[in-house]
């Protein structure tokens, strides 16, 4: 199966063609918003971090910023910094250039002389980039060029019965096509990590799976907290999920049935054509999705039981539920109804349709989160989400 996408100078293939206005810190975020509001074809997000962080925490932020700029859905990036933040412009630019050679411009608010002067410069840069981007013609590419991020949020028992099962079917097919599928959410491996570990391609990958799970639990214990406080969430429980183990055993269905080839740290660059891989991300949806998109995922498939609107600034998010009541209630937000799997539907047929939809979204079909204009996101912290 093929799709129509955009070839980037670094050899990767995008499924969207946007210009990113990248705020290097929280202090540059509103200026970035003002800039992006003036340029149709650009996108930005509210970066709540970028300053006053300890080194390991700042590294997550740097990796997400660099990864967003490098994500092949982005034609080019205008970095906007305040000037005095810890994520200094030269550091951000260096981190981006280590990942990609795509168009890159920079504006420092304190040097330009404030928001309006910085905006004037940055709007011109962004407008030029949007014009250049619009000249690109789409080309046909095999599905093996895709890196799919998988996520579940607002889960209920139908996630493990149907929606994650269908995502797992898609994952198996993407892997069979030669592409990459990312399984994420380390907190939701807890109680199911032995199943993933038994599918590890090498002893090193097996050890890494246990390592990221134990590291996550210990990191929270260091600050006197337990991962079970807050996970499962009140909504998970109202839906019928009782324990974290039960949630995890449903969650890992998103990884399908193929061997786990690699374990990546949060927001690090993921290799294309790698098969099924794991990324160490929090269970918190917007920050987990951000990590995978920074890793290069062009598309995210996202299951929900309770119903959630979450999108992403630069990657289309395909929403899927296994709960027939939620689909009926929130179909403005949800793209795919997987509930027939519970009621005797054929997984192969649903898998065929889902793969076709994924190829259509890769070729430009708007998901519901995109058509509603969602750009919310978060970045993982060292004292992490659960």
């Amino acid at each position, binding site marked *: 199966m093929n799709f129509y996408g955009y070839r980037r100078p670094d050899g990767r293939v995008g499924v969207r063609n946007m210009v990113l206005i990248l705020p290097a810190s929280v202090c540059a975020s509103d200026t970035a918003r003002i800039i992006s509001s003036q340029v149709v074809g650009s996108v930005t997000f509210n970066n709540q971090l970028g300053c006053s962080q300890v080194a390991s925490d700042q590294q997550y932020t740097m990796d997400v910023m660099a990864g967003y700029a490098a994500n092949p859905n982005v034609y080019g990036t205008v970095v906007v910094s305040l000037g005095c933040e810890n994520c200094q412009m030269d550091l951000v630019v260096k981190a981006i250039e280590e990942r990609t050679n795509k168009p890159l411009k920079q504006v420092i608010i304190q040097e330009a002389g404030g928001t309006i002067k910085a905006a004037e410069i940055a709007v011109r840069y962004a407008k030029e980039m949007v014009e250049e981007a619009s000249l690109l013609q789409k080309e046909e590419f095999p599905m093996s060029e895709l890196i799919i991020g998988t996520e579940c949020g607002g889960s209920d028992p139908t996630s493990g019965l149907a929606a994650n099962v269908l995502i797992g079917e898609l994952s198996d097919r993407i892997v069979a096509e030669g592409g990459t599928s990312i399984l994420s959410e380390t907190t939701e491996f807890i109680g199911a*990590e*032995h199943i993933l570990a038994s599918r590890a391609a090498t002893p090193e990958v097996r050890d890494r799976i246990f390592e990221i799970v134990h590291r996550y639990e210990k990191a929270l214990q260091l600050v006197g907290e337990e991962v079970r406080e807050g996970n499962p969430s009140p909504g998970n429980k109202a839906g*019928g999920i009782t*324990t974290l183990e039960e949630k995890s055993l449903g969650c890992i269905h998103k990884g399908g049935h193929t061997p786990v080839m690699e374990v990546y740290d949060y927001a690090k660059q993921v290799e294309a054509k790698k098969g099924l891989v794991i990324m160490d991300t929090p269970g918190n949806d917007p920050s987990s999705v951000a990590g995978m998109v920074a890793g290069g995922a062009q598309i995210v498939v996202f299951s929900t039981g309770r119903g959630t609107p979450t999108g992403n600034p630069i990657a289309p998010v395909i929403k899927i539920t296994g709960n027939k009541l939620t689909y009926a209630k929130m179909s403005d937000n949800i793209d795919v109804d997987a509930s027939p799997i519970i009621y005797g539907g054929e997984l192969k047929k649903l898998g065929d349709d889902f793969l076709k939809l994924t190829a259509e979204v890769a070729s430009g079909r708007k998901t519901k989160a995109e058509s509603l204009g969602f750009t919310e996101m978060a970045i993982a912290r060292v004292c992490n989400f659960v």
Partner: protein
Amino acid sequence: MQNAMIIDSRDNVIVAIEPIAKGDTVTWMCDGKENTLAALQDITIYHKIACRDIAKGMPVIKYGEHIGIAVADIKAGEHVHIHNVEGHRENLEAKVK
């Protein structure tokens, strides 16, 4: 009418796939065979029902795996949820060679 399902034949809980009222017959298929029991409580759709008696302190099994420990004696037909099950951290590394 099938109003529940079992995920793995080793499970001691089944999942309601329709709303179930106290006294209703709960019907599910396992290995091609129809099974029934009487619901002892109202069960919200997609919540769990014990399909066997589970003694206090014994593992609750879904997906063929332990999802927690029963903190009370649970009778077949009872609602299984946060009031009678708690999560329990096991050493799972020992399960993988």
